[in-house]
C-alpha cells in the first residue's frame, strides 16, 4: 500500500504521459523511483535494527546490571530480521536500477556520480547477502556492514537533488 501510494504520487508529479516514447519513459521512471524508494525504506529499517543489535550486543558483552530491566528484542531476532529485510530490499533496488537504466536508454542522458554510488550501495548489500549465506556472517560484523551500506544510502539521498535531478 505505501508503495502504491508512492507510485501514484510520482505519476501525478510526473504529469502523466506526454505521448510516443515518453509514455514508456514515465512508466520506467515511476518503477525506478518506486522500487528505489522501497529498497531505501528496507535499508533504513535494516540500519535501525543493526543499531539496536549493536547496542544490545554491547550491553550483553559488558554484563550491564540493568540489562534485564530495559528489554529489547533478542540478538538473534534482530540479526535475522535485518538479514530478511535486505533479502527483500536488494532485489527491489536491483529492479529499480534496471528500470532507471532502461529509462536512461529511452530518454537519453549521461551516467552521473550518483548512479555510481547507487551501484556501489547495491554491491555492498550484495556482498552482505553473499557473506551471510555463503560464509555465515552474522552478528556485529554483519551489523557494521549494514551500517556502511546505509551511509551510502544517505549519501545517495543527499546527493539526489543536486546531482541526479540537475
Amino acid at each position: 500500500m505505501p508503495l502504491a501510494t508512492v507510485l501514484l504520487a510520482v505519476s501525478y508529479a510526473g504529469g502523466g504521459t506526454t505521448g510516443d516514447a515518453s509514455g514508456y519513459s514515465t512508466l520506467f521512471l515511476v518503477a525506478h523511483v518506486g522500487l528505489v524508494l522501497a529498497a531505501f525504506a528496507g535499508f533504513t529499517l535494516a540500519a535501525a535494527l543493526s543499531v539496536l543489535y549493536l547496542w544490545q550486543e554491547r550491553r550483553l558483552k559488558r554484563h550491564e546490571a540493568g540489562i534485564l530491566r530495559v528489554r529489547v528484542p533478542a540478538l538473534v531476532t534482530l540479526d535475522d530480521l535485518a538479514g530478511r529485510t535486505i533479502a527483500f530490499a536488494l532485489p527491489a533496488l536491483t529492479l529499480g536500477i534496471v528500470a532507471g537504466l532502461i529509462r536512461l536508454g529511452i530518454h537519453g542522458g549521461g551516467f552521473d556520480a550518483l548512479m555510481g554510488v547507487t551501484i556501489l550501495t547495491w554491491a555492498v548489500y550484495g556482498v552482505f547477502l553473499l557473506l551471510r549465506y555463503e560464509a555465515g556472517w552474522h552478528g556485529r560484523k554483519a551489523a557494521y556492514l549494514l551500517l556502511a551500506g546505509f551511509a551510502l544510502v544517505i549519501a545517495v539521498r543527499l546527493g539526489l537533488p543536486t546531482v541526479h535531478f540537475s
Partner: protein
Amino acid sequence: MSLVLVGTSHRLAPVELRELVALGEKEAADVAHMLAAGGWETVCLSTCNRTELYLASDDAEAAEQRAAAVLRDLPVLYRLHDHAAALHLFRVAAGLDSLVPGEGEILGQVRKAAEIGAPGPLLDRLFRDAVHAGRRVRSQTAISESPASISSAAAALAQQVFGDLAGRKILVIGAGKVSEQAARNLVSRGAAISAVANRSVARAEELAGRFGARAVPLEQAQDELTAADVVVSSTSAGGFVLEQEGVHGTLGARRGRPLFLIDLALPRDIDPEAAKLANVYLYNLDDLAKIAEGNLAQREAEVARCRAIIAERTAALWPQIARNLNSNPG
C-alpha cells in the same frame, strides 16, 4: 458466616516445620474435601513455602480448631479472620508474601488450589478475585519483570540472545546440583539438554537420563561445543575446562551462531578470554549475581506499590464478599 485462614509459611516456620504439614496436590485436595464434608467451604493452598487452609464457616471457632488440628497444631500457625484473611490471600496471590517477591508461580498455585479444593460460592469468588488482583499487580507494576535468582537471571539472559529458547541445545558440564538447577531453568523455557559432560560418566548418565540427553566424559566437552547454543558449566576442576583456543576453534563451524556460556564454578571453568570472541557471551557467578541483586532491589522497590494496589483492591472487594458472608448464614 465467617472466613477463616489457618496456616504457616516460610516467614514463621523453618523448613523442618513446614515439611511436617506440606501436602502434595492430591493430599491438599483430599484435605479440602474432607473438611468440606463437615459443611465448610474449604481450599487448601500448599506450596514449598506455605500450607494454608481457607474455610468459610458459620462456626468460625470450630473451623479454626479443625484446620489447626489438620496442621498438627504447630506453634507457628497464623490464624486470620474475614478481612485480614482476604487481604492475606490477595497478598499471597500477588507474590508479595513469597520468598522472592513477585515470583510468578504462586498465581498458578492459588488458581489450582481453588480448582482442586472444595470452594463454595464464597471461596470461589474470593479466590477468583485474588487471582485477578494478582494479575493486576503484575501488569501494573514491574515486580515480576526481572528474575532475581542466579539461575533465572542466566536463563533470562539466554533469552536476550536467542529469544525463544525452543529447540536450543544445552551442553551441561559437571553433573552437580548447581548446573542441573541452571539447566532446568533453561529447559523450563523450552531449551533441551543435548549432552552432559562429567568426570564421572556414571553421574553424567544419571543426569542425562533424566533429560533424555547423552552422557560424555569431561574430556569430550570441547567436541560438543559446536552443536550447543548454551553451555552451563559447574565442575570442581582446578583449571579451565574450556580454554579460549578451544572455543575459538569451534566458531568457524558455528557459522555465526551465538554461543552463550554460563560459568557457575569457583574456581572458574571457562577461560574469561573466551568472552572476547565474536558472538560468544560469557557470564560467571559474579556477573549473574550482580544482575540478580539489581533485580531484587528493583523488586523490593516495587513491593510498596504492590501493597498499595492490593490494599485498595481488598478494600474495594471486601464489602461485596462480606455481604455474601452475611447472606449465607450456614
